[in-house]
Structure formats: C-alpha cells, structure tokens
C-alpha cells in the first residue's frame, strides 16, 4: 500500500524520488519499448541485455522518442552524464556496445544523440555533456521540434508515477486544486487558445465552458483514444510513453467542468496502450491521484477505460458515446451538442489524447507562454506522424506555423532514393492531398482547411512520383466505404458509388462524364451526410481532382497511368539491349509468363502476365520497364 499524496511535501518527496529514478547513481539502460520499438525488435534487445548484465546495472523501459525509423533504441545513462540515445541496435552492435556501457563508457558507434539540459528543462541535476556526441537539438530531426505532449515520451519510464512527477508532473493538478477556482482553470485554457487536436479544432476552453454551464448532473469527461486513421499513431505514442500526463490533464479538465467521472475510449488494436493505461490508472489510484478527495481536497474524480472494437466511426463523438453506453456505434445528429447532452444524455466534454496531454503543460507554463508558441489562430504545438515515402519515418511535434516543406525536408529528411516529391496527405482518410506548389504553406488549422485538406488528428502521408493520385483517392475512399456505419444514405451509398467510379477509372474503364459525376456526387455527399465522416469523405477525391486533374484525364482519355501504378493500364516489358538473359526473372515469375533461353534476351508473354511486378523488382540490370 502506497502513501497517498496529500500535501506539497508529499509531492516534493515523490518528485525527488522520480529525479533519483531518472538520474540514478548506477548505470541505467532504458529500452524504448513502444509498439514501434517492439515491432523493430526491442523486446529481443531487452532480453539480450537482461541476460548479460548484473544487478549493478538498472534496466528499464521507456516509450518512443519519435524517430521510429531508427529503432530499436536504448537510452544509456552513466552517472555524471546526460543520457545518450543509441539507435539501430541489433545483436551484433550490442556485442560491442554492451561491454562498453557496463564499463561506463559512451562510445560513438550507433550513437544518435545526447539528451541534455534543454531536454530536461530545469528538472534534475546539471550533468556533463559528452564531447563528440551530437546534442539533441543538433540532430536535424529534432532541431525544429518543440515537445509538449511528447515531452516525456522516450525519456521516462511510462509506468512510474515517480518519474512523471520527477519531470514536474502533478504539480499542475496540485496548483489547480489548491489555488484556482474552476472558472479560473477554464479561463486559462480559453486564454491559451488551445484548439482540439482531434480534428475539428474547436476552442477547448469554450467547449469546457459550455459543458460547465449546461444543466444536468453528473457531467462527464471523455478522452478519445480511438485513433483509426491509416498511418497515424500520435495518440498511441503519447499513451504508451506518458500515460499520467493524460490522467492529469483529464483531472484538471474535470475539476474545471465539475465532473466526477471520466472515460478513456481506446481501441483494442492498441494492446500496449490499453495495458499502459490500466497500470497507470491503478498506480494513480494507489497514490490518491485519482479517486476520492484528491490532494485532500473536496474534489473526487475517477477514470474508467472502455475499449473500442475497431470501428473508425467510433472516433466520432456521438458514435463514441453510444459505443461506451453499450449501443451500436452510430452517430446521431448533433443539433444538440454533446456538451449539453452527450454520454447518458448528460453534459459531456470529449477531447482527444493530445488535447488532454497539453493541459498540464498549459497550467504549468501559463497561457501567456503557451500563446507564444505557434501562430495567432493556432497556438501551441501539433504532433504529426510523418510516414510514407520519407527518410525519417516518425513522430514529430512541431510548433504550429512551420511550413509543410520544413516538416518533410528538414525534419523528415526528404524523399528516399532521390525520388521526386509529389503530394502529402494530411488529416487522415477524410483529409486532402497537398501538392508541391503549396509546400510553403504554414501548418495550422485554417491554412490547411483553405488548401482543401484539414489538420485532422495529425497523420501525414508523404507520396513520391511513383504514386498514382487516382489510386490514392480510390484507396482512401475504399477505406471510408468499409468504415461508413451505414446509417445514412448519402454516406453509405454515396461513398460506395464514389469508389466504383474511381475503381472504374483506375481499371481503364473511365468515361469522360465520370469527372462530372464524381463532382456531383461529392457535392451531395458533403451537403447531405449526417455526420462528419460523410461530410468529409469526398475530400480525397476533390483535392486530387483539384490539384492532379491531369492524372485523371490521362487515365480516362489516354488510358494511361502516369505514375505506372494502375495495373490495368500498364505493361511490363523487357529491354532487349539491357537483358543479359540471366534468367532470374524467368525463375521468379509465379505465372511462368517469361520466356527465354540462355544468351537470348527474354520476353514477357502478355497473356500470362498478371503484372505482379516481381520481375521488375528482381532484375539486377534494370532491364524491365513499366509502360
């Protein structure tokens, strides 16, 4: 049984303990074990290290620091120095590195960077910086970033409330409960200009205020962790790396709104996030940071977890609330807002993970400081998952207002294999594609909307010249066809027909009038759909039509796919001058569609070829082309 934290002294003791955990007097190895780390083999690294070290060395886990491309990563702490992050680890590298670490050495091999005073702010002791090792702010991936929601991810042990407190956690909640009236809390959040990070970008403080003013008890707060966009994993990383931040944020919100009960709706496909949240909630309850009379005040608040079954629509507020109530996850009309009548028909405030994660930071830094970050209309930072055809796949947190170009080329490191950038899809499946000519656009809620896309929850999918934009639109619409709940006609039938038309075009069956039909259908779906899923579903079609009309025309009029993606419109051919008749393609072809003998250039038999592309990939002489 742990002692409940009641007074400032209790909190200070916990903070001290935490600092001691983060900077112990022994060597400490922290393996980055987020889902992305585990997928790259972090568990294996963990076990190898565990078997080779003795009890003099501490071994812990931490979340993801953002550079998923270079996992598995280990943070090595040697007393006296700031932790050093090692990346791209495997068995071979460990053989050399582990003995050195055990000796208290910090070699340069596989070394990514050293965390330092900037990373740790004012928390903890002042330690030495290692020469020859790049500092965090010198690494291009981190240089332009500004971490608030991801402040602790990849740095602290996510299961340790001590380490969270050691980084300044729970002081905001203490300050709020002891010194501030609920109205004042809402005032600070409103003044900070924080806008919801889940998609709509509604002013968080105003939402809280409406909920507080709405009649009806009890009021509820909900955290939306039903992140379903393809290629997006911001919320998962925040939960896996820093769960207490969300619990603290929710408690602060609940105090402001006047709510005794909160829910976290998290998708079952995030087993590690679910487990992390369960552990964190249990821990917080033991310390009295959730439950009755938090910090000895009259404020009581507890959080429950509800797992979602994997329906994208359940990220929509009313569908999410229906799902928590145990009903079919379908949205309802929102002419009466959920802040007035939401979960169990009571006033309910729903914010997503990243929004809640920003709350403790806003309280601790003050709204004035927070407003200095970002742009006038969009304050603060935003986490993006930058994925696709990009060098540094990963999670970045940037101050609002930096350009898309900076994210892709400075932070992301540009497009691999010297390919040309074509477009970036922001805002998930219902966002839009931004072309090269708009790369200098600053990232904020209003600018993205103007360009026909949206901020969404922060997915960013980078596409290079080998991407067919019609195929991209078809892919995103097919996702929405699968994920439409089927309640209203426009979305259910409309997106299905959009998909059919796009499919027809990519198969070379497109007709000239299809473009007008796509536009007409899109207009009706946007105007008449019941919820935001339908209202934004045509965005991928409209934005690609707007910026990449020539590709549609090529598919329809010339029956050609300029990016050579759409199978029905391409053909594989062997260039006889380049073919050395090595026979590799002939052996690899699963359909025996390549004919040839030794020393005679090979040929593809058209009737047998299914255009799988294996020959194209395997040819060592680039003798196969797509036309």
């Amino acid at each position, binding site marked *: 049984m742990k002692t409940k934290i009641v007074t400032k002294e209790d909190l200070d003791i916990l903070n001290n303990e935490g600092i001691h955990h983060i900077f112990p007097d022994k060597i400490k190895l922290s393996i980055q074990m987020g889902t992305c780390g585990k997928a790259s083999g972090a568990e294996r690294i963990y076990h190898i290290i565990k078997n080779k070290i003795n009890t003099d060395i501490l071994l812990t886990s931490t979340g993801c620091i953002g550079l998923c491309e270079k996992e598995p990563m280990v943070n090595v702490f040697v007393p006296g120095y700031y932790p050093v992050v090692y990346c791209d680890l495997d068995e071979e590298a460990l053989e050399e590195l582990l003995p050195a670490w055990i000796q208290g050495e910090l070699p340069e091999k596989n070394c990514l960077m050293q965390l330092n005073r900037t990373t740790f702010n004012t928390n903890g002791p002042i330690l030495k910086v290692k020469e020859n090792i790049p500092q965090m702010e010198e690494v291009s991936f981190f240089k332009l970033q500004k971490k608030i929601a991801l402040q602790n991810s990849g740095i602290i042990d996510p299961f340790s409330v001590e380490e969270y407190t050691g980084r300044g956690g729970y002081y905001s909640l203490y300050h709020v409960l002891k010194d501030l009236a609920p109205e004042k809390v809402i005032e600070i959040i409103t003044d900070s200009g924080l806008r919801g990070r889940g998609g709509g970008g509604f002013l968080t403080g105003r939402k809280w205020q409406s909920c507080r003013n709405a009649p009806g008890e009890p009021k509820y707060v909900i955290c939306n962790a039903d992140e379903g966009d393809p290629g997006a994993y911001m919320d998962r990383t925040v939960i896996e790396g820093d769960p207490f931040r969300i619990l603290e944020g929710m408690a602060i919100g609940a105090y402001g709104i006047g709510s005794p009960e909160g829910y976290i709706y998290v998708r079952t496909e995030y087993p590690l996030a679910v487990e992390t949240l369960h552990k964190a909630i249990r821990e917080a309850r033991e310390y009295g940071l959730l439950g009755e009379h938090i910090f000895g005040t009259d404020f009581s608040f507890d959080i429950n977890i509800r797992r979602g079954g994997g329906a994208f629509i359940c990220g929509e507020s009313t569908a999410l609330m229906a799902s928590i109530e145990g009903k079919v996850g379908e949205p309802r009309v929102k002419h009466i807002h959920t802040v007035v009548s939401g979960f169990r028909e009571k006033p309910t405030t729903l914010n997503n993970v990243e929004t809640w994660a920003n709350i403790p930071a806003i309280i601790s830094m003050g709204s004035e400081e927070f407003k200095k970050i970002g742009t006038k209309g969009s304050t603060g930072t935003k986490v993006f998952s930058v994925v696709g055809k990009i060098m540094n796949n990963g999670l970045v947190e940037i101050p609002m207002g930096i350009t898309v170009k900076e994210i892709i080329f400075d932070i992301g490191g540009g497009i691999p294999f010297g390919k040309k950038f074509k477009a970036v899809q922001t805002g998930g499946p219902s966002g839009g594609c931004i072309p090269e000519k708009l790369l200098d656009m600053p990232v904020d809620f209003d600018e993205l909307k103007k360009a026909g896309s949206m901020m969404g929850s922060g997915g960013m999918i980078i596409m290079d010249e080998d991407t067919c934009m019609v195929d991209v639109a078809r892919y995103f619409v097919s996702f929405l066809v699968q994920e439409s709940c089927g309640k209203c006609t*426009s979305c259910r039938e409309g997106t299905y027909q959009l998909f059919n038309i796009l499919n027809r075009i990519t198969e070379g069956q497109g007709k000239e009038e299809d473009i007008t039909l796509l536009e007409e259908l899109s207009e009706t779906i946007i105007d008449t759909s019941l919820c935001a899923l339908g209202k934004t579903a045509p965005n991928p079609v409209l934005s690609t039509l707007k910026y990449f009309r020539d590709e549609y025309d090529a598919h329809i009029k010339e029956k050609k796919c300029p990016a050579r993606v759409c199978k029905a419109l391409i053909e594989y051919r062997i260039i006889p001058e380049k073919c050395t008749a090595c026979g590799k393609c002939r052996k690899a072809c699963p359909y025996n569609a390549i004919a040839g003998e030794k020393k005679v250039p090979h040929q593809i038999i058209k009737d047998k070829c299914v255009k799988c592309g294996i020959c194209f990939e395997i040819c060592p002489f680039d003798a196969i082309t797509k036309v």
Partner: protein
Amino acid sequence: MEEKDICTIKIDGKKISLAKGSTVLEGAKMLGIFIPTLCYHEALPPRGNCRLCIVEMSIVKRGRTYSWIDASCVYPVEDGLIVQTDTPKVRRERKLILELLLSRAPDSDVLNKLAVEYDADKNRFVSSDNGDSNCILCGLCVDVCNNLMHSSGIGTAFRGINKKVVSPFNITQEVCTGCLACISVCPTGAIKARFEGENLNIETWNVKLKMLKCHSCGKPFYPGVYVDMLKDKVTMAEELLKKCPECRRKVFRLSVK
C-alpha cells in the same frame, strides 16, 4: 407557453410559430407543405437516415447569412430560420439520393414513383447488391421492434454498404410475437410475411409462428405468442382475447343490447 419557448420560422415564404424543440418537418406539415420522407414515422422519434427530406435553410446571425442543407425531420426550429423546401439545389440533391436509394432497391414502388417526380435515372449507378430485398436501411423496423414493441427481435448487422437488418445472428429467433409492426412501418415493403395454413411465416426474420384458433369460430386469427403478449398489455378478459376480432365484436354487440 412563454414567449422564449416559441420560435417563428418561415417555410417557403409562409410564417409559422412553433414550440421550441419542434422540427422543421413538423412545421411544414402544419402548413400543408409536402416534403418527401421515407424513414419518418409519426409514432417514432425522427432519425435522419434516408436524407430525402433535405431542405435548404438559412439564418442571419450577427449580420452574416449562413445557409446550408439539412434533413428537415431532425432539424429543431430556431427563431429566424428561413426554410426553402423545393429549390433547384434541393431537387438536384434529392434526385441523386433517390438514384442512390434505387441502386439498392430498384424494384421499390415508392422509390420508382418518386423517381418519376424527380426525374431520377435508376441506372446511373451500379447496383449495391442487396439480394432481392427492397430494404433501404431506414431503420424504422428495428426502432419499432426494439423501442415500441420492446421485443428486440431484429437489429442491424455489419456496417456501411454491407449493413443488413436481421434477426439475431440471422437465425430463427424466439422473441418475435408476430405483431407485424415492422411491416406496417416499412416504407418500401421490404419485409416478407405470409399466412400458410395455421402458421404465420415471416421469411425475412426466419420466423414461423403458430396461429391461435378462435375459441368461437375456430378460424386461426393471431399468432399464439402475440395473444400471450396482449394479456399483459390490455385489460380484457382472457376469454375475449382468445376470440377473433370478428367474434369479439359479436360478443360486444350482444352486451350492448
């Protein structure tokens, strides 16, 4: 009623005052303005599923005019709202919605009649394969079964284009009382049921119910389970309940004499 609880709106140029919480469709009905609907039924709360009742709305707020399209069956009236029920844009979008509905239920009489009115082309879109059913997934049958009859004999399964109304797990279920409320609310006649000798066979829900024979004339009249359910709901002697409506009337007629 206090003044603040009354909203005055204009529909197609005609003014009407309604109680707060009323819908635009209700206002239109009072004014005798026809708005086509499919998923609307007076006995049930509106759901806004079929989207056929869309209208163009506009309102002036803080000096700016906002206008948009929305479903009239679920839109609550607000002071100063101006509604137009039959503009070219509304007609164009209704036509497209009809075409989408026809791609699901091409043989539905009610849809085909509306298609003539709105000049909808039922072959513009490929069929969204739905077997031979005329179901347009309006949700009325599920609502009436669950929330009015409290039987919960049917529900929706799957989602999106694959969504279907089925009995639980699409197998024979035992909660259906054969009240046939689902058939009475279905706008497209998509639910199939027939009397086969002494049985009521509701094929769409995999239900076969034995009919009760009238205690007087011996003619099968209601499913037995339905009569059992009525016992708890109406104050009528059991002996009377077990007679067919015809014979029951005779008894009443005698008692009036």
